[in-house]
């Protein structure tokens, strides 16, 4: 399975360009964008500050993918997480999964994001105003 992980301080382009053409086996591309929401409870959010323990974050993601691809064989996964200040309405994370059929792509995406939020050492904090 092809894996690409990017931690970047640049805005996440939408749609992001895959670095390689779709494979001959690819019949589905499932994508998820996580957006900085303006409302959080009763409060308003102008931006969030993200930071990562980058090397461990990539290692944990690769371990999660290795386990999940045994359950849901897919062709490729691309993860982009933005670091630094992310304004409201902009993407903090992008995950794209290429698979032969849509079902394994949807299932892998759901479980990957759930696992990501449990264990990948990336934090969001209130941005300094």
């Amino acid at each position: 399975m092809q894996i690409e992980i990017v931690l970047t301080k640049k805005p996440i382009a939408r749609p992001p360009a895959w670095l390689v053409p779709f494979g001959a086996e690819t019949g589905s591309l499932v994508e998820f964008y996580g957006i900085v929401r303006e409302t959080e409870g009763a409060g308003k959010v102008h931006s969030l500050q993200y930071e990562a323990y980058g090397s461990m974050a990539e290692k944990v993601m690769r371990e999660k993918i290795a386990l999940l691809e045994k359950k849901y064989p897919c062709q490729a996964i691309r993860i982009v997480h933005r670091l630094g200040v992310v304004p409201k309405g902009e993407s903090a994370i992008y995950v794209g999964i290429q698979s032969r059929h849509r079902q394994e792509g949807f299932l892998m995406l759901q479980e990957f994001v759930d696992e990501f939020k449990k264990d990948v050492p990336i934090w969001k904090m209130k941005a300094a105003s």
Partner: protein
Amino acid sequence: MKVLFFAHSRQAAGCADYVLKTDAALTQAQFWTMLIAACPGLAAQQKTARLARKETYLQSGDLLQPDDEIAVIPPVSGG
């Protein structure tokens, strides 16, 4: 033993890393006792943070060796 701090643990410690002087292996409870004695601001982190060595989360019974580099990982919130 070098200790790395991130996000809320860095804010609580007031620094990004700290050298904990020990010649012996430590249980995780001993590690926290020594760390909090040196950095009292980290007391609240003991209940919520996880520890990692070589970019892998420690299991509950794992010992910490004097030459380890240990990361204090507060609850994650990426995505």
